[in-house]
């Protein structure tokens, strides 16, 4: 408990200071609410529209979680394949890098044409944005095994699969999890891009769609309220993953000890 408080307190203090400065700036400089709503106005907008924001949040949260799962699965599978088949690395890497330069709206329509107005095209967009950090960190992690280790394993008559299973895979796990954390950080903005670049038939289109509508309709306070929810969600997910990392790869946290 005490440790948790020690971790939360500095962040809470800094957030409080920034919110206070923001409030003071808007009030003292007389900034119009359509331009920049004060924190109290954002809170009021959130309170007044709690049901709308909550429903849209549920949609976005589902997209982020499932999209990240898809990105992790794709990134890990591709990393393992690239590690085991160097030829594949030469073939796939340039395409994987290039894929990160494709502006999503260009292919949004195509994805909807293929898979309809449901959630799946959005998951594909998120996965496309998020698989890359997982791929790169995992490929590096798999290659970072001590070069002497394979010799030892060979004199123990380990098969290729056993060497992978006992040495390479666990060695790559911390790197893969770091990749997942980066993926998560871009995953929320990925969901925003997904929602705004693919049309939907659902009653609630997600927070990203809501933000675009509100920002265009002079509902700036509500757009900020939705943004705050995304903000908090990203922070919560990040720390949840850090917690999972400590569970899954406790040896990786040992020498550093600065993980949140």
């Amino acid at each position: 408990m005490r440790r948790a408080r020690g971790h939360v307190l500095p962040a809470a203090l800094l957030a409080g200071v920034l919110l206070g400065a923001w409030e003071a700036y808007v009030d003292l400089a007389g900034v119009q609410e359509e331009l920049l709503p004060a924190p109290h106005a954002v809170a009021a907008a959130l309170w007044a529209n709690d049901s709308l924001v909550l429903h849209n949040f549920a949609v976005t949260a589902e997209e982020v979680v499932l999209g990240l799962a898809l990105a992790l699965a794709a990134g890990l599978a591709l990393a393992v394949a690239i590690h085991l088949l160097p030829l594949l690395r030469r073939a796939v890497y340039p395409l994987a890098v290039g894929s990160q330069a494709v502006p999503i709206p260009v292919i949004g329509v195509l994805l909807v044409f293929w898979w309809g107005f449901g959630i799946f095209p959005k998951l594909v967009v998120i996965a496309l944005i998020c698989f890359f950090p997982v791929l790169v960190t995992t490929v590096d992690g798999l290659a970072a095994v001590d070069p002497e280790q394979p010799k030892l394993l060979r004199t123990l008559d380990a098969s290729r699969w056993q060497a992978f299973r006992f040495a390479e895979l666990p060695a790559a796990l911390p790197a893969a999890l770091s990749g997942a954390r980066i993926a998560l950080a871009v995953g929320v903005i990925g969901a925003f891009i997904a929602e705004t670049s693919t049309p939907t038939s659902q009653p609630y289109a997600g927070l990203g769609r809501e933000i675009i509508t509100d920002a265009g309709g002079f509902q700036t306070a509500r757009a900020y309220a939705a943004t705050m929810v995304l903000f908090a969600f990203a922070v919560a997910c990040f720390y949840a993953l850090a917690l999972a990392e400590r569970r899954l790869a406790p040896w990786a946290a040992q020498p550093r000890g600065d993980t949140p």
Partner: protein
Amino acid sequence: MPAELQSRARPSAPPRAPVAEIVLERVGHGYRRRNGADVQALAGVSLRVAAGELLAVVGPSGCGKSTLLELLCGLQRPDEGSIVCPPAVLMPQRDLLLPWLSALDNAALAPRIAGDSRALARRRAAALFAELGLAGFEGARPHELSGGMRQRVAFLRTLLSGKPVVCLDEPFGALDALTRAEMQQWLARTLAHERRTVVLVTHDVEEAVLLADRLVVLSPRPGRVLAELDVDIERPRSRTDPAAIALRERALSALGMDGCG
């Protein structure tokens, strides 16, 4: 090209493997450095290691000692000559314990790779933990162990592979002097229980005289056999025994180091 290569049949890792003899005939071996330069590591090395014997190979750094062990373990094939060696397991200088496994699971890695279930592999490792002075450390992770304890776990892993030949590549080279002395005693005791054919590579002549039945002195690269010395000293040995000191001097003079002390 060598006519005979070691049989690398896969034993089901019996707890105490039969001891067996090693024969090297005029073995030469080279490798290519990353910068493209060819290095002749060994030249015309003929050796015989009797079953159950502990042979120490001493020589200056870079005399092809590690290459010799890699050849014995079948990690490389010799360019020239022939090697007859039963299945051999390598214990490298660095322990290479897996940080995500407990000490017990690290030791149990060898039987697990040989196909034992996790539970059986653990039981077999646990049975030897006390004997090797590791009781109570089963659940410790490698980073929680001292250098000496880590080498003990690594050596237990090596023993549990069940291979008749054990190749030790400067096993105590990274330890401080006190721990090293303690580990030398420990290795002598352990090998008295767990008889194997052992090839110990070291640059420490004192260590070789303390542990080995016989000493082979290699020249600087390309490694050739300069001298073979029998160590006919009663065990347990003391490093201050006049016979041990005399033998040490003979080995050092074979290395051309007699004037340096």
